[in-house]
């Protein structure tokens, strides 16, 4: 089923698009209903689509972690980073309840991301905002760790190591990997 233009206009990723653009997009995108506990993407797999959560809730899991890493809820975009950099899925996403997802196939996403027209630029602006928001959030968090605002027990070597690791990560994000 295709999403309605009205439904698309309420998603942050597509805010700012005009009626004609929303119409065009609604014909290209598909709604996907997923039942509770259905796995939508699997860590290590090649990425074929990006998704926006329309309703419901999904959990994010990493193989190295025994518990849930994060929730994805209405308006959240996921799966697009692997489409942008061509990497594999870095986590597994599983529906925690019956959910509705907007599926953006890799083909459509790449066309939107790479095209040189006003429509694609609006979407690229939103994707850039999303990436910057993630970057700012993680650097703010790293800043708190590095500045000691978490008040870790300094005698705890593990915490000291984590602070050192966080400091290194902060630099990598801002200035790229060390040579």
């Amino acid at each position, binding site marked *: 089923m295709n999403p309605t233009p009205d439904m698309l206009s309420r998603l942050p990723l597509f805010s700012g698009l005009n009626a004609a653009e929303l119409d065009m997009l609604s014909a290209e995108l598909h709604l996907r209903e997923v039942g509770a506990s259905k796995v939508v993407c699997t860590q290590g797999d090649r990425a074929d689509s990006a998704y926006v959560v329309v309703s419901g809730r999904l959990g994010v899991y990493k193989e190295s972690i025994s518990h849930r*890493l994060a929730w994805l809820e209405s308006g*959240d975009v996921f799966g697009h980073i692997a489409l*942008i*950099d061509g990497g594999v899925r870095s986590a597994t996403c599983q529906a925690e309840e019956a959910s509705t997802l907007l599926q953006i196939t890799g083909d459509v996403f790449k066309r939107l991301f790479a095209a040189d027209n006003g429509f694609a630029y609006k979407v690229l602006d939103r994707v*850039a905002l999303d990436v*910057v928001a993630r970057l700012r959030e993680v650097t703010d968090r790293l800043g708190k760790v590095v500045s000691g605002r978490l008040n870790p027990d300094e005698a*705890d070597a593990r915490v000291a190591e984590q602070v050192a690791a966080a400091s290194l990560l902060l630099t990598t994000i801002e200035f790229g990997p060390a040579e």
Partner: protein
Amino acid sequence: MARNIAEFLPQVPIFAGLTPDEIHALLPAIIEQDVPRETVVYEQGSVANAAYVITLGQLEVDLTKPDGTTTRVRTLGPGHLVGELALLDSGPRSATVRARNPAHVYRIDGTAFNELRAQRSPAAYKVIRELVRVMCDRFRDVDAQIERTVDFGDPPSVEIEEAGGVGNWLRRALRFGGQR
């Protein structure tokens, strides 16, 4: 100057995909600057309003922590881009950058770049697209670094719970969270 920029910029990865015409379209946003030794290019905490491409000399990147200690985190040379996040948003600078020796840079003005963006300049959007790709690559690098360096075990005590969960907490922000 224009000719030199047109020759130099394509050697910098984020400009590599631009045609000579597109480089030309960016020129209104770019000025050449000499940076005398020890001169501060930008200060940690100041509002970001430009990116810099180093053409000669070296720039040092110093990070000052709240306890007042400063660490040199990078020394960057010709061909490097620094402060590029200013082209995506105008948040505070995360470090101080100064010239180690007499340097020369191309300064890409954030306001002028945003004007090109508002005019839907394909050249500006090519740069944005490349910056987004670079950031996504760095997310992946950081994710891999977290995997290697940060302890993911369940925190053994309440006192370090927040710190103990650092890896997950960071990853949530990096890749999996929404914009809330």
